[in-house]
């Protein structure tokens, strides 16, 4: 036991050092966002604000109307998540449990999509949405998140464990498939649906390239696009940019901390070969 103490201390020292290195960029972002203008650009660098101020947050919410982008992000990520849950939930369950001809072949075909990078379809998708009038709309920004092969795969893996007898018993009782799905399957799938919800919300919230392409009106920008845009004009305003970064990052960090168990399960399940 005594021999292990030294190595245990070393182990924890390494963990704490790595943890500190991981957190420093985020901690500095928060700290600098409260510094008076100009203080983040001082030498030697300051770690804490001399006199904490909320002025940059006030500027962002009043003069720069960041609430508009916050709302846009909420709408895009929120609607996208709701739609993705219904669409992928039903499909994932069907691929796992409903017996129909062509099921396996269709699923294998879908898996093909995983090797194709999204960028290959981006240009035609943009032209397509443009001709449909969806460019510069929320719908256009949401489209890539509605149905995903990963989402279907995730739900399917989980739904495979539902016993057939349970479903067949309900069928014998005369329940329709939609009713079985709503009454029996959904409650069982709840944990994995939460996992999928966190995944979709985070990826829609954090996405940059697609909203950058499809949203042209500044008023429609989601937070990441607005932030990138802002950083061009306000490159000297370090503290202001840090406050904007905090506003962008905080909602997803809170969501992660609240639901991390569900999220981490999704990461691990996604790595299991089907």
């Amino acid at each position, binding site marked *: 036991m005594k021999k292990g103490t030294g190595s245990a201390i070393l*182990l924890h020292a390494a963990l704490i050092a790595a943890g500190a290195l991981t957190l420093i960029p985020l901690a500095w972002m928060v700290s600098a966002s409260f510094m008076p203008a100009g203080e983040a650009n001082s030498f030697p660098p300051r770690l804490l604000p001399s006199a904490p101020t909320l002025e940059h947050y006030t500027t962002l919410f009043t003069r720069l109307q960041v609430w508009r982008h916050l709302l846009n992000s909420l709408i895009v990520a929120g609607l996208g998540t709701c739609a993705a849950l219904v669409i992928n939930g039903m499909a994932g369950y069907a691929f796992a449990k409903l017996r129909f001809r062509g099921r396996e072949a269709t699923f294998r075909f879908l898996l093909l999509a995983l090797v194709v990078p999204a960028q290959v*379809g981006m240009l035609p998708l943009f032209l397509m949405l443009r001709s449909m009038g969806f460019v510069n709309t929320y719908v256009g920004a949401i489209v890539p998140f509605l149905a995903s092969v990963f989402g279907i795969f995730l739900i399917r893996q989980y739904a495979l464990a539902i016993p057939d007898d349970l479903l067949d018993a309900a069928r014998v009782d005369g329940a329709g498939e939609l009713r079985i799905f709503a009454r029996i399957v959904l409650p069982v799938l709840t944990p994995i649906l939460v996992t999928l919800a966190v995944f979709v919300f985070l990826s829609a919230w954090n996405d940059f390239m697609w909203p950058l392409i499809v949203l042209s009106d500044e008023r429609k920008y989601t937070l990441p696009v607005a932030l990138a845009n802002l950083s061009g004009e306000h490159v000297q305003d370090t503290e202001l940019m840090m406050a904007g970064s905090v506003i962008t990052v905080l909602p997803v960090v809170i969501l992660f901390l609240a639901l991390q168990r569900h999220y981490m399960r999704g990461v691990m399940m996604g790595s299991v070969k089907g």
Partner: protein
Amino acid sequence: MSGRPLATGETRAGWLFTAPALALIGVFFFVPVIGGLLLSLTDFDIYAIGDPHAVRVVGLANYGQLLNQPLFWKALGNTFYFVALGGPLSVLASLSAALLVSQRRVRFPGLFRSIFFMPVVTTLVAVAIVWRYLYHPQYGLVNAGLALLHLPAVDWLGDPRWAMPAIIVMTVWKNFGYNMLIFVAGLQSIPEELYEAAALDGAGAWSRFVHVTLPGLAPTFLFVGVTTMLGMFQMFSEPYVMTQGGPLKATTTIVLLMYEEGFRWWRLGLAAAIAFVLFVIMLLGTLLQMRLQRDRA
């Protein structure tokens, strides 16, 4: 499937339940992908957006033009540099973190796991902006840290030699938590008996790591290797936000080049060709890793 005959009600429900997903993926993914291939064979440009009849089929001319474009080769080289250096570094960081948090004696393993995972969930654009200031040659914390170690200051994002390594460090920081989690799952799946048997044979810690842990993680390495590589080949936001592809195009990646050709200059035919080259490279990379892994097994 069970031996039971297919029920018509179930068949109908099966297609009904999958129809929305299949329709959406078909229309908004497979059709555009095929469209992308066709687009790359045309001279679709800004004039064609106004008048689609102006589009001409030019065969492989776009691909030919790419091969003669120095910037394309530069972007290709930058992307390979990023993947070849960043990929192994990222996997190494993830594996180290996973080994640390998986030690049985660790107090609060969940806390450390959450901390290491935190950067993964943050918004890339936001943290890229944060790192741009951390890399500031005068006021940035990175150079302040180097000064503490009596190392010279570096103009991270302003020096063509350092800009890509700087982006790689930030990418490793951002992503290592994700693969760490997958390695943790992989480590948990190695049977305890193997370690006990190795210990009985007198194997030391290092020998157990080489002969039990590493072979046990082989499937995890394949998964992590392929997904990390695929993700890195698509790097876009980091250079877009931190360096705009500079200095001297040192951080212009394939996808950044595609974006600029397609959505800044509206040369969509040429941009589609760039996207397809990327697709082929990623496919070859995946096949290569699967082959290497199989040969070793």
